[in-house]
Protein backbone atom coordinates (compact mmCIF):
# COMPACT_ATOMS: atom_id res chain seq x y z
CA UNK A 1 0.00 0.00 0.00
CA UNK A 2 1.46 3.31 -1.03
CA UNK A 3 2.00 6.16 1.38
CA UNK A 4 -0.63 8.26 -0.38
CA UNK A 5 -3.23 5.50 -0.08
CA UNK A 6 -2.38 5.06 3.59
CA UNK A 7 -2.69 8.80 4.11
CA UNK A 8 -6.14 8.90 2.44
CA UNK A 9 -7.19 5.84 4.39
CA UNK A 10 -6.15 7.35 7.70
CA UNK A 11 -7.97 10.56 6.78
CA UNK A 12 -11.13 8.64 5.77
CA UNK A 13 -11.11 6.73 9.05
CA UNK A 14 -10.30 9.76 11.19
CA UNK A 15 -12.86 9.96 14.03
CA UNK A 16 -13.73 13.57 13.15
CA UNK A 17 -14.74 12.47 9.65
CA UNK A 18 -17.08 9.89 11.18
CA UNK A 19 -18.69 12.48 13.43
CA UNK A 20 -19.00 14.94 10.52
CA UNK A 21 -20.61 12.28 8.31
CA UNK A 22 -23.09 11.39 11.04
CA UNK A 23 -23.98 15.01 11.78
CA UNK A 24 -24.38 15.80 8.07
CA UNK A 25 -26.50 12.77 7.29
CA UNK A 26 -28.56 12.73 10.49
CA UNK A 27 -28.93 16.52 10.59
CA UNK A 28 -30.08 16.70 6.99
CA UNK A 29 -32.71 13.99 7.43
CA UNK A 30 -33.94 15.49 10.72
CA UNK A 31 -34.22 19.01 9.27
CA UNK A 32 -35.88 17.99 6.00
CA UNK A 33 -38.29 15.79 7.94
CA UNK A 34 -39.28 18.64 10.26
CA UNK A 35 -39.72 21.08 7.35
CA UNK A 36 -42.08 18.68 5.61
CA UNK A 37 -43.98 18.04 8.83
CA UNK A 38 -44.74 21.67 9.58
CA UNK A 39 -46.06 22.24 6.06
CA UNK A 40 -49.39 20.95 4.78
CA UNK A 41 -48.94 17.32 3.67
CA UNK A 42 -50.39 18.30 0.29
CA UNK A 43 -47.14 20.06 -0.60
CA UNK A 44 -45.14 16.85 -0.18
CA UNK A 45 -47.91 14.95 -1.96
CA UNK A 46 -47.44 17.21 -4.98
CA UNK A 47 -43.68 16.60 -4.84
CA UNK A 48 -44.23 12.82 -4.76
CA UNK A 49 -46.70 13.09 -7.62
CA UNK A 50 -44.11 14.88 -9.79
CA UNK A 51 -41.96 11.71 -9.83
CA UNK A 52 -44.77 9.65 -11.43
CA UNK A 53 -43.56 6.57 -9.61
CA UNK A 54 -46.26 5.62 -7.15
CA UNK A 55 -50.00 5.20 -7.73
CA UNK A 56 -52.03 8.22 -6.66
CA UNK A 57 -53.73 6.35 -3.79
CA UNK A 58 -50.30 5.87 -2.20
CA UNK A 59 -49.31 9.53 -2.38
CA UNK A 60 -51.23 10.71 0.68
CA UNK A 61 -50.19 7.85 3.01
CA UNK A 62 -46.58 8.36 1.90
CA UNK A 63 -46.73 12.12 2.39
CA UNK A 64 -48.25 11.66 5.84
CA UNK A 65 -45.80 9.04 7.12
CA UNK A 66 -42.45 9.40 5.36
CA UNK A 67 -41.49 12.75 6.96
CA UNK A 68 -42.01 11.27 10.46
CA UNK A 69 -39.66 8.40 9.63
CA UNK A 70 -37.21 10.84 8.08
CA UNK A 71 -37.25 13.10 11.14
CA UNK A 72 -37.02 10.30 13.75
CA UNK A 73 -34.27 8.31 12.02
CA UNK A 74 -32.29 11.48 11.26
CA UNK A 75 -32.58 12.73 14.84
CA UNK A 76 -31.46 9.40 16.33
CA UNK A 77 -28.54 9.18 13.92
CA UNK A 78 -27.55 12.75 14.67
CA UNK A 79 -27.52 12.04 18.40
CA UNK A 80 -25.88 8.65 17.94
CA UNK A 81 -28.63 6.71 19.66
CA UNK A 82 -29.47 3.26 18.27
CA UNK A 83 -26.89 4.32 15.71
CA UNK A 84 -26.80 1.10 13.70
CA UNK A 85 -30.59 0.84 13.42
CA UNK A 86 -31.08 4.53 12.59
CA UNK A 87 -28.25 4.37 10.05
CA UNK A 88 -29.90 1.39 8.40
CA UNK A 89 -33.25 3.23 8.16
CA UNK A 90 -31.61 6.40 6.86
CA UNK A 91 -29.59 4.38 4.32
CA UNK A 92 -32.74 2.63 3.12
CA UNK A 93 -34.55 5.96 2.62
CA UNK A 94 -31.49 7.41 0.89
CA UNK A 95 -31.36 4.43 -1.46
CA UNK A 96 -35.06 4.85 -2.32
CA UNK A 97 -34.75 8.63 -2.81
CA UNK A 98 -31.64 8.22 -4.97
CA UNK A 99 -33.29 5.53 -7.08
CA UNK A 100 -36.35 7.77 -7.53
CA UNK A 101 -34.17 10.72 -8.56
CA UNK A 102 -32.14 8.48 -10.88
CA UNK A 103 -35.30 7.19 -12.52
CA UNK A 104 -36.51 10.73 -13.25
CA UNK A 105 -33.16 11.47 -14.90
CA UNK A 106 -33.38 8.29 -16.98
CA UNK A 107 -36.96 9.08 -18.02
CA UNK A 108 -35.99 12.62 -18.95
CA UNK A 109 -38.24 14.24 -16.34
CA UNK A 110 -36.84 17.62 -15.39
CA UNK A 111 -37.80 18.75 -11.91
CA UNK A 112 -37.05 22.30 -10.83
CA UNK A 113 -37.62 21.24 -7.28
CA UNK A 114 -36.98 17.70 -6.10
CA UNK A 115 -39.23 18.29 -3.08
CA UNK A 116 -36.41 17.22 -0.76
CA UNK A 117 -36.63 20.34 1.39
CA UNK A 118 -40.37 20.88 1.34
CA UNK A 119 -41.49 24.13 -0.23
CA UNK A 120 -39.70 26.53 2.08
CA UNK A 121 -37.74 28.34 -0.55
CA UNK A 122 -34.67 26.12 -1.01
CA UNK A 123 -35.11 24.40 -4.35
CA UNK A 124 -32.85 21.76 -5.79
CA UNK A 125 -33.20 20.20 -9.24
CA UNK A 126 -33.34 16.41 -9.56
CA UNK A 127 -29.85 16.31 -11.11
CA UNK A 128 -28.25 18.29 -8.28
CA UNK A 129 -30.14 16.25 -5.68
CA UNK A 130 -28.94 13.01 -7.28
CA UNK A 131 -25.28 14.09 -7.08
CA UNK A 132 -25.80 15.33 -3.51
CA UNK A 133 -27.26 11.95 -2.60
CA UNK A 134 -24.16 10.19 -3.97
CA UNK A 135 -22.09 12.24 -1.51
CA UNK A 136 -24.48 11.22 1.27
CA UNK A 137 -24.10 7.57 0.25
CA UNK A 138 -20.35 8.11 0.78
CA UNK A 139 -21.23 9.24 4.33
CA UNK A 140 -23.26 6.05 4.82
CA UNK A 141 -20.31 3.92 3.68
CA UNK A 142 -18.02 5.74 6.11
CA UNK A 143 -20.49 5.17 8.98
CA UNK A 144 -21.04 1.50 8.11
CA UNK A 145 -17.28 0.96 8.37
CA UNK A 146 -17.13 2.67 11.75
CA UNK A 147 -16.77 0.23 14.63
CA UNK A 148 -17.79 2.57 17.42
CA UNK A 149 -19.28 6.01 16.69
CA UNK A 150 -17.70 8.92 18.59
CA UNK A 151 -19.70 11.68 20.25
CA UNK A 152 -22.70 9.39 20.33
CA UNK A 153 -25.27 8.86 23.10
CA UNK A 154 -24.84 5.10 22.61
CA UNK A 155 -21.40 5.41 24.23
CA UNK A 156 -22.90 6.81 27.44
CA UNK A 157 -25.08 3.79 28.03
CA UNK A 158 -23.81 0.86 30.16
CA UNK A 159 -21.93 -1.77 28.19
CA UNK A 160 -21.91 -5.53 28.59
CA UNK A 161 -18.87 -6.61 30.64
CA UNK A 162 -15.83 -7.50 28.62
CA UNK A 163 -16.75 -5.18 25.76
CA UNK A 164 -14.05 -2.62 25.11
CA UNK A 165 -14.51 0.73 23.48
Amino acid at each position, binding site marked *: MSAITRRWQSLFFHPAVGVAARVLLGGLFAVTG*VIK*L*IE*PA*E*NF*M*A*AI*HAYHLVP*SWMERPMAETLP*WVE*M*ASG*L*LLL*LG*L*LTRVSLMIVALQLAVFTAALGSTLLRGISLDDCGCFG*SMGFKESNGVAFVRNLVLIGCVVRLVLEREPRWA*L*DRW*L*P*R*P*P*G*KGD
Partner: protein
Amino acid sequence: MGRASSRKQPRREASSDPAVHARDGRSRRSRFLRFWLQGLAAAVIVGTAVGLILWLRPSLPTVVVPSADPFRGSPTAPVVITEFSDFQCPSCRAVEPVLKQVLAAYPTQVKLVYVNYPLPMHHFAEQAAVAALCANEQGKFWDYHDRLFDRQPDWAGSADVRPLFHGYAVDLGLDHNRFDACIAGGRLLPFLRADIDRGTALKIEGTPTLFVNEQRAATGAVFEDLKRMIDEALHTAS
Protein backbone atom coordinates in the same frame (compact mmCIF):
# COMPACT_ATOMS: atom_id res chain seq x y z
CA MET B 1 -17.73 -11.58 12.39
CA GLY B 2 -15.16 -11.16 15.11
CA ARG B 3 -17.79 -10.05 17.58
CA ALA B 4 -20.04 -13.00 16.76
CA SER B 5 -17.30 -15.59 17.13
CA SER B 6 -16.12 -14.09 20.43
CA ARG B 7 -19.71 -14.37 21.67
CA LYS B 8 -19.99 -18.00 20.69
CA GLN B 9 -16.70 -19.07 22.26
CA PRO B 10 -17.64 -18.47 25.94
CA ARG B 11 -20.99 -20.20 25.38
CA ARG B 12 -19.25 -23.42 24.42
CA GLU B 13 -17.07 -23.17 27.48
CA ALA B 14 -20.01 -22.37 29.75
CA SER B 15 -21.06 -25.96 30.07
CA SER B 16 -17.76 -26.85 31.70
CA ASP B 17 -16.76 -23.63 33.48
CA PRO B 18 -19.26 -22.09 36.02
CA ALA B 19 -17.28 -18.81 36.15
CA VAL B 20 -17.63 -18.33 32.40
CA HIS B 21 -21.30 -19.25 32.66
CA ALA B 22 -21.88 -16.56 35.30
CA ARG B 23 -19.96 -13.97 33.27
CA ASP B 24 -21.99 -14.85 30.20
CA GLY B 25 -25.22 -14.42 32.17
CA ARG B 26 -24.11 -11.00 33.42
CA SER B 27 -23.19 -10.02 29.88
CA ARG B 28 -26.60 -11.08 28.57
CA ARG B 29 -28.38 -9.13 31.33
CA SER B 30 -26.22 -6.11 30.59
CA ARG B 31 -26.95 -6.32 26.89
CA PHE B 32 -30.65 -6.61 27.67
CA LEU B 33 -30.46 -3.55 29.97
CA ARG B 34 -28.53 -1.61 27.34
CA PHE B 35 -31.09 -2.49 24.70
CA TRP B 36 -33.94 -1.26 26.90
CA LEU B 37 -32.10 1.91 27.86
CA GLN B 38 -31.44 2.66 24.21
CA GLY B 39 -35.09 2.07 23.38
CA LEU B 40 -36.25 4.22 26.28
CA ALA B 41 -33.89 7.07 25.44
CA ALA B 42 -34.93 6.89 21.77
CA ALA B 43 -38.61 6.91 22.75
CA VAL B 44 -38.11 9.95 25.01
CA ILE B 45 -36.15 11.89 22.40
CA VAL B 46 -38.36 11.03 19.43
CA GLY B 47 -41.48 11.51 21.58
CA THR B 48 -40.29 14.99 22.60
CA ALA B 49 -39.55 15.85 18.96
CA VAL B 50 -42.97 14.59 17.85
CA GLY B 51 -44.65 16.60 20.62
CA LEU B 52 -42.74 19.74 19.66
CA ILE B 53 -43.59 19.34 15.99
CA LEU B 54 -47.26 18.73 16.72
CA TRP B 55 -47.23 21.81 18.93
CA LEU B 56 -45.48 23.97 16.32
CA ARG B 57 -47.34 22.52 13.37
CA PRO B 58 -50.27 24.63 12.30
CA SER B 59 -53.41 22.59 12.72
CA LEU B 60 -55.18 22.61 9.41
CA PRO B 61 -58.92 22.56 9.87
CA THR B 62 -61.10 21.70 6.93
CA VAL B 63 -62.67 24.50 4.97
CA VAL B 64 -66.27 25.47 5.53
CA VAL B 65 -67.79 26.60 2.29
CA PRO B 66 -70.21 29.46 2.82
CA SER B 67 -73.04 29.70 0.36
CA ALA B 68 -73.05 33.53 0.10
CA ASP B 69 -69.59 33.86 -1.46
CA PRO B 70 -69.32 34.76 -5.13
CA PHE B 71 -68.94 31.67 -7.24
CA ARG B 72 -68.47 30.50 -10.81
CA GLY B 73 -69.57 27.23 -12.32
CA SER B 74 -72.51 25.03 -11.46
CA PRO B 75 -74.18 25.93 -8.11
CA THR B 76 -74.99 22.27 -7.50
CA ALA B 77 -71.58 20.93 -8.52
CA PRO B 78 -70.31 18.05 -6.38
CA VAL B 79 -66.81 19.55 -6.20
CA VAL B 80 -66.23 22.99 -4.72
CA ILE B 81 -62.93 24.78 -5.20
CA THR B 82 -62.53 27.50 -2.61
CA GLU B 83 -59.95 30.08 -3.54
CA PHE B 84 -58.47 32.32 -0.86
CA SER B 85 -57.01 35.10 -2.93
CA ASP B 86 -55.55 38.59 -2.94
CA PHE B 87 -56.17 40.90 -5.91
CA GLN B 88 -52.71 42.44 -5.62
CA CYS B 89 -50.83 39.13 -5.45
CA PRO B 90 -49.05 38.20 -8.71
CA SER B 91 -49.38 34.45 -8.00
CA CYS B 92 -53.15 34.89 -7.63
CA ARG B 93 -53.18 36.58 -11.03
CA ALA B 94 -51.12 33.72 -12.45
CA VAL B 95 -53.50 31.05 -11.15
CA GLU B 96 -56.56 32.60 -12.79
CA PRO B 97 -56.00 30.97 -16.23
CA VAL B 98 -55.54 27.62 -14.46
CA LEU B 99 -58.88 28.01 -12.67
CA LYS B 100 -60.58 29.02 -15.92
CA GLN B 101 -59.11 25.90 -17.53
CA VAL B 102 -60.52 23.82 -14.65
CA LEU B 103 -63.99 25.33 -15.05
CA ALA B 104 -63.87 24.70 -18.80
CA ALA B 105 -62.84 21.08 -18.23
CA TYR B 106 -65.50 20.45 -15.55
CA PRO B 107 -68.42 22.74 -16.49
CA THR B 108 -71.04 20.91 -14.43
CA GLN B 109 -68.88 19.24 -11.82
CA VAL B 110 -66.96 22.14 -10.32
CA LYS B 111 -68.03 25.28 -8.51
CA LEU B 112 -65.36 27.90 -7.87
CA VAL B 113 -65.84 30.05 -4.76
CA TYR B 114 -63.81 33.20 -4.25
CA VAL B 115 -62.86 34.32 -0.74
CA ASN B 116 -60.94 37.54 -0.14
CA TYR B 117 -57.72 37.18 1.76
CA PRO B 118 -55.79 40.43 1.22
CA LEU B 119 -52.28 40.15 2.58
CA PRO B 120 -51.05 43.03 4.79
CA MET B 121 -47.92 43.44 2.65
CA HIS B 122 -50.04 44.43 -0.35
CA HIS B 123 -50.87 48.06 0.14
CA PHE B 124 -53.97 48.23 -2.08
CA ALA B 125 -55.23 44.65 -1.71
CA GLU B 126 -57.83 45.51 0.90
CA GLN B 127 -59.22 48.42 -1.14
CA ALA B 128 -59.38 46.12 -4.18
CA ALA B 129 -61.23 43.49 -2.17
CA VAL B 130 -63.78 46.07 -0.95
CA ALA B 131 -64.23 47.35 -4.51
CA ALA B 132 -64.90 43.80 -5.72
CA LEU B 133 -67.43 43.28 -2.91
CA CYS B 134 -69.13 46.54 -3.88
CA ALA B 135 -69.29 45.30 -7.48
CA ASN B 136 -70.75 42.06 -6.11
CA GLU B 137 -73.64 44.05 -4.67
CA GLN B 138 -74.53 45.00 -8.23
CA GLY B 139 -74.09 41.45 -9.52
CA LYS B 140 -70.81 42.19 -11.29
CA PHE B 141 -68.31 40.54 -9.00
CA TRP B 142 -66.66 38.36 -11.63
CA ASP B 143 -66.43 41.10 -14.22
CA TYR B 144 -64.79 43.33 -11.66
CA HIS B 145 -62.61 40.44 -10.43
CA ASP B 146 -61.36 39.81 -13.96
CA ARG B 147 -60.74 43.50 -14.53
CA LEU B 148 -58.75 43.83 -11.29
CA PHE B 149 -56.51 40.90 -12.19
CA ASP B 150 -56.15 42.00 -15.84
CA ARG B 151 -55.10 45.49 -14.82
CA GLN B 152 -53.19 44.48 -11.69
CA PRO B 153 -49.85 45.90 -12.90
CA ASP B 154 -51.53 49.30 -13.56
CA TRP B 155 -53.23 49.86 -10.23
CA ALA B 156 -50.74 48.02 -8.03
CA GLY B 157 -48.05 50.46 -9.15
CA SER B 158 -50.14 53.61 -8.90
CA ALA B 159 -50.10 56.17 -6.12
CA ASP B 160 -53.87 56.31 -5.70
CA VAL B 161 -56.12 53.45 -6.79
CA ARG B 162 -59.45 55.17 -6.24
CA PRO B 163 -59.78 56.84 -9.67
CA LEU B 164 -58.73 53.61 -11.39
CA PHE B 165 -61.22 51.50 -9.43
CA HIS B 166 -63.93 54.06 -10.16
CA GLY B 167 -63.00 53.92 -13.85
CA TYR B 168 -63.32 50.12 -13.94
CA ALA B 169 -66.78 50.40 -12.36
CA VAL B 170 -67.84 52.88 -15.03
CA ASP B 171 -66.38 50.72 -17.83
CA LEU B 172 -68.26 47.67 -16.58
CA GLY B 173 -71.58 49.51 -16.48
CA LEU B 174 -71.95 49.64 -12.71
CA ASP B 175 -73.96 52.35 -11.04
CA HIS B 176 -70.88 54.37 -10.16
CA ASN B 177 -72.59 56.56 -7.58
CA ARG B 178 -73.74 53.53 -5.68
CA PHE B 179 -70.31 51.95 -6.13
CA ASP B 180 -68.52 55.04 -4.81
CA ALA B 181 -70.92 55.31 -1.84
CA CYS B 182 -70.34 51.66 -1.06
CA ILE B 183 -66.59 52.12 -0.98
CA ALA B 184 -66.69 55.36 0.98
CA GLY B 185 -69.20 54.08 3.52
CA GLY B 186 -67.11 51.08 4.50
CA ARG B 187 -70.31 49.12 4.92
CA LEU B 188 -68.82 45.94 3.51
CA LEU B 189 -65.67 46.03 5.62
CA PRO B 190 -67.13 43.63 8.22
CA PHE B 191 -67.74 41.10 5.43
CA LEU B 192 -64.14 41.47 4.34
CA ARG B 193 -63.00 41.01 7.94
CA ALA B 194 -65.12 37.86 8.14
CA ASP B 195 -63.39 36.51 5.01
CA ILE B 196 -59.97 37.28 6.49
CA ASP B 197 -60.93 35.66 9.79
CA ARG B 198 -61.96 32.52 7.94
CA GLY B 199 -58.61 32.40 6.20
CA THR B 200 -56.75 33.03 9.43
CA ALA B 201 -58.68 30.23 11.12
CA LEU B 202 -57.56 27.95 8.30
CA LYS B 203 -53.92 28.95 8.95
CA ILE B 204 -53.57 30.40 5.50
CA GLU B 205 -50.16 31.99 5.18
CA GLY B 206 -49.96 32.74 1.49
CA THR B 207 -52.16 33.33 -1.49
CA PRO B 208 -53.58 31.81 -3.51
CA THR B 209 -54.58 28.93 -1.25
CA LEU B 210 -57.00 26.54 -2.90
CA PHE B 211 -59.20 23.88 -1.39
CA VAL B 212 -60.81 21.16 -3.46
CA ASN B 213 -63.72 20.29 -1.21
CA GLU B 214 -61.91 19.77 2.11
CA GLN B 215 -58.50 19.03 0.63
CA ARG B 216 -55.91 21.78 0.61
CA ALA B 217 -54.09 22.00 -2.70
CA ALA B 218 -50.33 22.22 -2.74
CA THR B 219 -48.65 25.61 -3.04
CA GLY B 220 -48.14 26.33 -6.73
CA ALA B 221 -50.65 23.71 -7.86
CA VAL B 222 -51.01 23.51 -11.63
CA PHE B 223 -53.91 22.23 -13.74
CA GLU B 224 -52.80 18.59 -13.50
CA ASP B 225 -52.64 18.77 -9.69
CA LEU B 226 -56.13 20.23 -9.47
CA LYS B 227 -57.45 17.78 -12.05
CA ARG B 228 -56.14 14.87 -10.00
CA MET B 229 -57.74 16.24 -6.83
CA ILE B 230 -61.05 16.89 -8.60
CA ASP B 231 -61.08 13.39 -10.11
CA GLU B 232 -60.43 11.92 -6.68
CA ALA B 233 -63.20 14.05 -5.15
CA LEU B 234 -65.61 12.99 -7.93
CA HIS B 235 -64.63 9.38 -7.40
CA THR B 236 -65.31 9.72 -3.65
CA ALA B 237 -68.63 11.45 -4.26
CA SER B 238 -69.86 8.81 -6.71
